[in-house]
């Protein structure tokens, strides 16, 4: 039973679970760095998941589905940026109302367009297949991880590298971090904080839309109501834990995905399904508490929202 912990299949499941989290996480991270507390990640991802599958079913092409997923994510993100940045509304309240709005709208549209309730699965829908690499795919262990990556999986890897380079090596990335740290100081240098913030929120819409598409077109080819299932909140916590840095974020999300993968695999050994369901949230909560306790002991800053 213990070999499950290192089995190649477990790591393949980890990768499938990690890709959408990573895409969404990078969106949350850029918002965190620019000083916007984005609690609509859940809604952005759900909209992306719906847009992705609906788009693929209606157009017959997964690529068109991904494009529609991006548009859906951006629409949700722009309602957040309008409310939070332009109108100065409470980011938490606006985020929660946006999330609930997306839950309602996706169920409504599911019924209005496809006439079904609960979930939509049509045989023959074009999904995103995993890309099998000819050479590297044969390597044991690593191969099974690489072979479970879809095109969006490679996008996630590229986006992670790009985000790290953007934040650390570019002038615009430096300015973005400046806006997050001291918006007033940035403004005196002629940088418009609201422009950077709006852009970051829209980028989180693009990335979150892709994350949703990976859920509904990559991992499985179906949409169910509320299929984001709290992942957006896990990502919010992960970004707080990582304090807005890229590598720690990847680590936290990988831990979450690993627990998720092991939990699912252990079910075949008679682990009650509820334990697998709760495990990622328990691990996240423990990590949150443990890291806060460590930071407190070192006298550093406590983990706090925004």
């Amino acid at each position, binding site marked *: 039973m213990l070999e499950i912990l290192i089995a190649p299949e477990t790591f393949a499941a980890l990768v499938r679970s990690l890709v959408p989290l990573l895409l969404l996480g990078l969106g949350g991270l850029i918002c965190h760095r620019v000083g916007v507390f984005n*609690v609509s990640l859940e809604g952005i991802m759900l909209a992306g998941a719906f847009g992705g599958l609906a788009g693929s079913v209606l157009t017959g092409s997964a690529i068109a589905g991904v494009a529609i997923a991006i548009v859906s994510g951006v629409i949700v993100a722009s*309602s957040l940026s309008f*409310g939070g940045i332009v*109108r*100065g*509304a*409470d980011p*938490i*309240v*606006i985020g*929660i*109302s*946006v999330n*609930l*709005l997306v*839950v*309602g*709208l996706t*169920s*409504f549209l*599911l*019924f*209005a367009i496809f006439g079904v*309730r609960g979930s939509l699965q049509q045989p023959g829908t074009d999904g995103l297949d995993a890309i099998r690499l000819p050479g590297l795919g044969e390597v044991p262990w690593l191969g099974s991880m690489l072979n479970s990556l879809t095109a969006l999986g490679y996008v996630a890897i590229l986006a992670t590298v790009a985000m790290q380079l953007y934040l650390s090596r570019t002038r615009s990335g430096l300015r973005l971090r400046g806006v997050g740290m001291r918006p007033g100081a940035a403004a005196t240098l002629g940088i418009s904080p609201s422009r950077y913030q709006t852009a970051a929120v829209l980028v989180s819409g693009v990335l979150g839309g892709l994350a949703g598409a990976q859920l509904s077109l990559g991992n499985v080819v179906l949409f169910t109501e509320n299929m984001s299932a*709290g992942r957006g*909140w*896990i990502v*919010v*916590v992960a970004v*707080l834990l990582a304090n807005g840095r890229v590598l720690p974020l990847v680590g936290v999300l990988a831990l979450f995905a690993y627990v998720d993968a092991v939990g699912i695999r252990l079910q075949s050994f008679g682990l*009650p399904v*509820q*334990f697998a*369901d*709760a495990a990622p*949230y*328990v691990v*996240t*909560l423990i990590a*949150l*508490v443990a890291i*806060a*306790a460590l930071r*407190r002991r070192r006298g550093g800053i*406590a*983990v*706090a*929202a*925004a």
Partner: protein
Amino acid sequence: MTAVTTAGRRRDPAVLARRVLAALTGTVTVSILAALVAVGVLLVAIGQNPFDVYGALVEGSLTGRGLVTTLQRSVPLVGLSIALIYSFRAGVFNLGGQGQFLVGGLASVVTALALPGTGIAGIVVACAAGVAAGAAWGVVPGVIQVTLGPPVLVTSLLLNYIGIAGVSYVISLLKPPASSEQATPTIAEDLKIGALVPAQSDLGAAMGQALERNDVLLLAARGLNWSFVVVILLVVATILFNRRTATGFEAGVTGLNGAFARNVGIRGSRIVLTSLAISGGLAGLIGALVVLGTNYRLLDGQFEATGYAMTAILVVLLGRSSPVGAVLAGFFFSMLQVGGEELNRTFALSPAIASIIQALVIFFVVLRLGIPVVTQRLRKRAEAAATGERVEEVPDAVPGPRDNSTVKEG
């Protein structure tokens, strides 16, 4: 909400008229109208006549049996909103209502199953178990925040998922082996909370003879149970708590301005813990009332499916953390929900239309849509144009609690 000191001024008709006008042109009214218009556009887009749809929604939720269903749904919704008010008013963003509600329901059903039939005393004990479990569950995020710092907002939400899975597991243990449903056994007959006027009682029989079979009064007397009265008492108690007790006052001050409250010597951590314990305890009580008064057992997933706990957050935001506001907003949101289900039957529309209107109303409220705001801004802009000054936006009250996520021992 008028405080005691303004009770005298209320009688002045001019002041009253101005108040009514302010309410009619205020953010809440305008937001509701805007949400209805937005959903109306959506309805036109899918080929429905919005006036017909809204007419059916009102008729389905405010007449006859529909009205009784609306009242029935209002009971847990208003109850959970009252529970959340205790934390939101103190500036604590408690998103854990779902878990507290569920854990309370589970504790009460477990207690009720363990108790031999003991009538009223048994009901009280089962409710007390619900309160204790909800309070214990609810206070955990508070303890984490005041000792280590991670915000209640996030931890309370994570605990929901853990609670849902944990309760589901306990249900699977309690499930009778022969049963195909994932549910606990049904509680004893005399532990069920009865209808206000049971059909078998003398009064019930007399009412049955005096009134028509479909009379709303008769349907309400038989369809509503004593939880209705409990929630009314809770509303009154909350108004008194907020206005007349030191803790209620301190919680209100902390919610309005955490830094000020700390500086005048109010201990933030104590307020966070107290408000979460009360919030969780009351949410647990509502869980117990739903189990003992409506479901008589706990079916896996049933509490989550109602959406009460998440809708209650919106109710509190719309009602601006006031108990009377929660009653009005809770009734309104129940009405949308019941009417939405009616639309599903008559127009083949998704009942999700109710949640869309609800979320949109809050969205617009947070954007501070309101005629006074608009006219004020226009007037200011005109003045500014005259004097050549720049316009400063004056944010008016936002209905959410201030972000007190960093409240620490002080």
